[in-house]
């Protein structure tokens, strides 16, 4: 696991989500990137039912990533996170009287996985309740685990196929002390996906309760 950056790519003007995705695929293939299968990242939202305490209940997110198919990641926004095996999903079913699954809020990003030298690129369509909400691009630079050491290289690479919509250094890395490496458990990647999913959720349904 190297350093990853997850960003949202705007839909090209006058094009559909699928057409924009196809354009990105074409650009990557022109660069020489090779398609290597597909990927999927999903996120379920749960909220605590028993609101016995005075504080408002926090949302609990349970995420999966095809890159780590036997694991599942559970996290509270800005709070602690847990890496567990797939049986955690079964446990959440047992816990359904305490944590309710907001079924309509399952978000996922699905798409193709490309490899270009030391980079892994995943172009995904973000969907929520079967409607396409946007496009995600994940770029991973595999040989390095120190974000500060490879960010400029990653940025330059992303410019080559994303053009001007290259993101800033992800906040998960910016918040860390200089030189600190990304953990091998893909928590940083998933945190970025969660931020993106939450942004897309709020974008499309303004004013409505996200829960």
């Amino acid at each position, binding site marked *: 696991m190297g350093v990853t950056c997850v960003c949202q790519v705007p839909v090209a003007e006058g094009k559909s989500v699928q057409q924009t995705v196809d354009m990105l695929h074409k650009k990557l293939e022109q660069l020489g990137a090779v398609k290597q299968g*597909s990927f999927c990242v999903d996120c379920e939202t749960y909220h605590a039912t028993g609101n016995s305490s005075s504080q408002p209940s926090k949302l609990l997110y349970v995420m*999966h990533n095809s890159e780590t198919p*036997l694991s599942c990641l559970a996290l509270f926004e800005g709070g602690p996170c*847990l*890496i567990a095996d*797939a*049986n*955690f999903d079964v446990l959440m079913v047992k*816990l359904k009287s305490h944590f309710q699954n907001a079924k309509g809020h399952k978000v996922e990003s699905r798409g193709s996985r490309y*490899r270009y030298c030391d980079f892994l690129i995943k172009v995904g369509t973000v969907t929520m309740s079967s409607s396409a909400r946007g496009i995600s691009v994940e770029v991973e630079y595999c040989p390095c685990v120190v974000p500060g050491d490879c960010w400029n290289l990653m940025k330059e690479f992303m410019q080559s196929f994303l053009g001007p919509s290259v993101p800033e250094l992800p906040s998960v890395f910016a918040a860390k002390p200089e030189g600190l490496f990304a953990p091998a458990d893909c928590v940083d990647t998933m945190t970025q996906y969660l931020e993106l999913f939450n942004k897309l959720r709020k974008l499309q349904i303004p004013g409505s309760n996200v829960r």
Partner: protein
Amino acid sequence: MEAPPVTVMPVTGGTINMMEYLLQGSVLDQALESLLHRLRGLCDNMEPETFTDHELVYLLKGQQGNPFILRARRSLSHPTAPWHLRYLGQSEVGDKSRHALVRNCVDVAASHSLPEFLNEMGFRMDHEFVSNGHIFRKGAMKIVVSKLSRILVPGNTENTEHLSLSYLVELSVLAPAGQDTVSEDMRSFAEQLKPLVHLEKIDPSKQRH
């Protein structure tokens, strides 16, 4: 550095509906060696395995009904190993045709942030103890002979006191629901351990004081 190609999609759901079949008994400390000797003879040929675990029992209290119980265990002898989180359902003991106690069981391997995470979920630690002993296997059957110790100062696993002058003996099998034949195998195995130890179907709900 070559990243592996992705071939598997996320497995959601895990292993649904696993049941634990359980028989329990105990032996006095003096009888431990002869029981271990017998188990070494009966069980699969493997390296003798010992363990020292710290178990924390967490409760989540809802507005009504019984609290939801989860057991978090960590190995004190292998501190870098993942934590083990366990949910145990209501035990079914009534059925006379079954020779073992049967209960729903969910086992989850989890990272070291587990206690902090359970706290955030609203769980509160109810009690904790240290369990150390020996593990044996015979096919799918697991035999655990363990000594339970109470923790005198919360969180300090160095400072403990034995709960009793005996060892807990547990014979268990994990199997998908409906595979009741495993309880037959367990019964015949338990027969072979007599008279060193009498393994029985014990109803935990009747043990509460």
